[in-house]
């Protein structure tokens, strides 16, 4: 018993404040959009140069000049605006996005993020906008399964994968719990299918009680 990706996305969506400007990273975080009703007033940013991005484009709505950061065809909503990459990243770096949601290989208890490179020697590295988002957004939310396929926890005392950003993650949404990374330590909440004791045993990160 644990949350599906879709259920994690719904939890993230639920925590995004009304009217926030939000960037959803490529991959899983994209699905957060499906849980943000128009009444949320949330404005989606895509770093390739659009504010107020709409849902995926289908059929005749597909326009090769209108894509998201994952290079999938999308739509624009009324009240959108286009800008170039320098302006888009200035917006990100300048702290104007309220929230970004990213995937991760690992997150440390201090909020370090590793999500761009496995460190494997034959891997072709690619970073895209990950470091810019991690550094720039006011709040960085991570969405991931808490354990890798081999059972190793991905919330760790220290990241072993190459870092994307230092001390940048505020919250980690996983299939079994949500973690707040605070100055005092890590707080686990909203546990699903796992007891606090079990969670504490499987992680090497000390947990504070919520």
């Amino acid at each position, binding site marked *: 018993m644990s949350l599906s990706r879709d259920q994690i996305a719904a939890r993230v969506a639920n925590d995004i404040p009304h009217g926030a400007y939000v960037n959803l990273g490529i991959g899983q975080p994209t699905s957060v959009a499906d849980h943000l009703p128009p009444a949320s007033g949330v404005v989606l940013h895509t770093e390739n140069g659009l504010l*107020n991005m709409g849902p995926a484009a289908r059929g005749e709505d597909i326009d090769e000049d209108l894509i998201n950061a994952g290079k999938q065809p999308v739509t624009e909503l009324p*009240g959108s*605006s*286009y800008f170039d990459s320098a302006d888009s990243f*200035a917006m990100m770096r300048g702290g*104007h996005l309220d929230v970004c949601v990213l995937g991760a290989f690992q997150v440390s208890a201090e909020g370090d993020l590793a999500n761009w490179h496995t460190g494997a020697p034959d891997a072709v590295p690619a970073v895209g906008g990950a470091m810019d988002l991690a550094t720039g957004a006011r709040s960085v939310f991570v969405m991931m399964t808490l354990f890798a396929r081999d059972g190793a926890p991905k919330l760790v005392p220290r990241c072993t994968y190459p870092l994307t950003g230092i001390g940048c993650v505020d919250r980690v949404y996983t299939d079994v719990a949500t973690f707040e990374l605070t100055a005092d330590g890590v707080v686990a909440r909203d546990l699903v299918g796992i007891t606090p004791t079990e969670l504490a045993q499987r992680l090497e990160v000390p947990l504070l009680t919520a």
Partner: protein
Amino acid sequence: MSARICGTAAEAVAEVADGATVLVGGFGMAGMPVGLVDALLEQGASELTVVSNNAGNGDTGLAALLARGRVRKVVCSFPRQSDSWVFDDLYRSGRVELELVPQGNLAERMRAAGAGIGAFFTPTGAGTQLAEGKETREIDGRTHVLEHPIRGDVALIAAHRADRKGNLTYRKTARNFGPVMATAARHTVVQVGQVVEVGTLDPESVVTPGIYVDRVVSL
């Protein structure tokens, strides 16, 4: 967070605090947010640092704010004008502090604040009085000066049209410092000629996206 459409200029400038750094748009009178500056005068905030290209014309607007003793310091490129007698008197009698900044450094320092750039090396001003005491470095055989961001607590700017999400367009050379100031302040207040419905402005022609705008008032 979303822009709020205000009914009055007074409501739009209500949050300016004593001691605030206020970025004021305009080049001469083009793009000058006259209604917002007048409302700020009424509102009463004092001990202000005003960042603006000029330092007031005649006896109204910025000049009135200066005359009433609300401004501790002016950061600008061109205070001296034919009708800047209010600033000139205060400056000569030592009642207002002046930080004179080359116009491009003024724009670029605000751009840095808005773009999250910690500091930058610029050739402008190297070897002049205005770079005295500043860190320098030779880059590609040319002396560069290290300049730091100018961040506003508040920006007061004028635009042509806004939609209800705060997206802005400007008109001709009245654009000048508005777009960069909107990015450089924690709280951006805009006076516009007209507020239009969402979907009215062409997304390709929006100059300041609503993400940079907090309060809008049609005056």
